[in-house]
């Protein structure tokens, strides 16, 4: 674990003092969910620059076992890396839509600390679009990561 990740863990753990702890059970810390959303939003916001697309902050959003409709962590990071390379060489690249997360709620944690994140995804480029969604997250050493639906099959 590098220094930045250690620092991140300390911050997150302090926000998770009410966490029922490793080993499962309910997980209801609003502060922890907000902290995760803050990390996600900071990473998403950094996509406005080429360097943001390949930042460690982005990588640290995803658990090593992340799998979502066939997308692994490696695939996600490689795709971002490819976008960064293309953006650097082609200013007219239509970078993907960006969004922010609001109203995060984490619940239904299982024995493996895999929980459900319910939140609202918002794009405000011109006309505000917001949609509620849910996805799986995992808590490792007090830090929340995207975990994905663990499906290797694209559903759309």
């Amino acid at each position, binding site marked *: 674990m590098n220094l930045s990740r250690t620092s991140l863990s300390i911050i997150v753990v302090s926000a998770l003092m009410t966490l029922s702890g490793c080993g499962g059970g309910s997980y209801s810390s609003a502060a922890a969910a907000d902290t995760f959303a803050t990390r996600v939003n900071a990473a998403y916001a950094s996509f406005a620059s080429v360097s943001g697309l390949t930042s460690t902050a982005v990588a640290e959003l995803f658990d090593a076992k992340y799998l979502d409709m066939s997308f692994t962590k490696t695939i*996600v990071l490689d795709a971002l890396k490819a976008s960064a390379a293309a953006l650097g060489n082609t200013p007219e690249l239509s970078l*993907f839509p960006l969004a922010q997360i609001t109203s995060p709620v984490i619940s239904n944690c299982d024995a493996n600390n895999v929980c459900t994140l319910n939140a609202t995804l918002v794009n405000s*480029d011109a006309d505000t679009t917001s949609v509620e969604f849910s*996805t799986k997250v995992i808590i490792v050493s007090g830090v929340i990561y995207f975990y*994905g639906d663990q499906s290797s099959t*694209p559903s759309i």
Partner: protein
Amino acid sequence: MSKQFNLRHTALAVSALVGLISVATVQTAAAADKAKTKAAGTYVTGDFHNHSTCSDGSLSMKKLIDKSVKTYGLDWFVQADHGGSSARNCTLSEDPFEPVAPALGLTNSATGPYPPATFPSGGQPAATLKGPNQSWESTLPGGRADIKGDGTATPKAMWRWQEIKEFQYKVTEDESRARQKPIWMGVEQNAPGHEHISTTVLQGQKPWPQAGVMGNATLQAQYEYCFDRNDGDTSRGAENQWDCSVTASANANALVDPTARKIRGTNGAEAGFNAPDRGHLKSLEGIRWMNEKAPTTSYYIPAHLERAGKYDPIANRGFNIEHLRNFNNTAPNIAFGFESMPGHQASATRGEYRAGFGGPGIDSVGVGTYGGTGIYAARIGGVWDALLGEGRNWWFFASSDYHNRGQFGPDQRESTQDFYPGEYQKDYVMVRRGTNNLSAEGIIDGLRSGNSFAGSGDLIDRLAFVACTANPAIPAAAFKSLLEKAASNAVAKNAEVRIDGCATMGEKLVVAPGADLVVAIAVRDPEGTNNAPYSFPNPSLKQINISQPLNAPVLDHIDVIGGNVTGYVSPTDTSKYAGLEGSAAASNSSTGIKKVFSRTNWTVAAGGVRVMSYRIPAVKVSQYVRLRGTNLPAATPFETDANGNPLNDYDLIPQDDGVTATIPGKVKCDDAACPAHMRTINGVKYSSFDVAGWSDLWFYSNPIYIEVINSVKIAGTK
């Protein structure tokens, strides 16, 4: 005429034109505009190709405009009579008419507006000096002397340039301002070397929302004088003393007649002013003229372009793909699409497409329409896809081409010939200046942008269609939901999706190689009934045991059609540039149906909205996606094939221009309410005329381009 002869001349024409076609007009590639830079817009409905008695229509201008923008509620309208000349005064008020039984929708009592003061076709007696069938000569204060030019017939015909400039424009502007809708003048040009082109030169016209001093249609009138095949006036527009030469068009200017100051003649054998391909050259010169005089407020859109058959260098008939390429190369900001969903959809042979349209052995290309659309756009992988496969800005439009209602009167709801503008077909065009500032300029910008769709029978009345680069850092289901919601929101507002990293119709998305895309679609299948006067079950659907009122169609499915883009073909590459329908030059073999959405895989939302999306994984090459949809399931007998492609309408309806006898139709119209005017052969009533049109409904979207970095540049759009 042998095919060999045509191809030889076509090749010669293309070769001769190489020096004239400016390939430098190809636009610089750029990504879709950023969302924040796009003004909010709205899709508005309109029609740009219809006729009054100033050419071969049956109505006054006022009545045609009233039907279009009031009865059928179009947001904008272009009055576009044929060029040439005519004897009738279309600016007069309408005749009351004689209804034809059973006169659906009309009061037929002696106390109503109709009998006893009605007149059959042809209007009131000349002595009344009333009605749009009266002649200019009999109704102008100075009579014959007020008609300019050198005509000798009685009554004397007026050149269309005079009608437009001195009479029709004022009516159009008055109607526009009174009704507070953009209504302006165009011309359906009798194109030299071809059949017809829907044109507008807006410059000078001041339709609503402009106010104050009246504008003029002088440039539109001049265009008609200079470039309409049937305008034989040589007077330079009398006191106007027009000159039709185009700056820096040396080769063509050399052909300008010293007296008429325009290119005279058209396609024909070497005789007089005519010569092989002379007309096509003159047509190209007309586009250059528009580009010089009104580059941002003109358009040039070939009409019913398959109807007259393939191109003939010594006659004035149809269009091959090389002519469309020539038009677009000459001025892509003006020649940017075609009316491949023609008017005349209630006629005996749908769209008037048929065998022998141009005389014995000269069939419409494709013979008939296909689900009401010409084969150039209806055949997947055909002419339209070949043009899109070059990355051209070449868009799909529909028109009503209203002339008359066949055996019925103008206020009757049945028709054996045409539908009114807005009654059956509509063009839905994005206007960014918004509903509170709708303008003719904004509508032409919208037509040019490709951000439009067209359809029949109100099958759908709203569409949001967007392709976006997938954001890999957002969980896939959440990202899909976000885009579907954006599309749904856009449909609710009759607007478009405005999100960075997305492109809509007429735009291109520039993506990294290997990127995933998400295509999101929302449509509204309007609830209630359309304008069909019939509520009996759709006879085409009845064949497959679906009972659906003819006036309440339901969208059955949407096809997502995609193909690869391989770049512009050079005019010097004759084998790839020029060819007939079905040839390699007129085909895109990469095109196919990529996805089918129906009730099994779309989400139904309130108000008839259907929402859907799908992912295109790891794009490697530049490509495009477009949509079509219909009320007919795949494999509906005589209507659609197993893949859902529309079948030839000419084979479905009874027709009697075959070799010896009337050929029965294929789909019976045996409901008790099926109207009396259906073709009845050997006691069997067949789906035909307007019923055949209302039975078979389609919509087509314009494409979204996807340009993959390090693949082919898509030059025709941004």
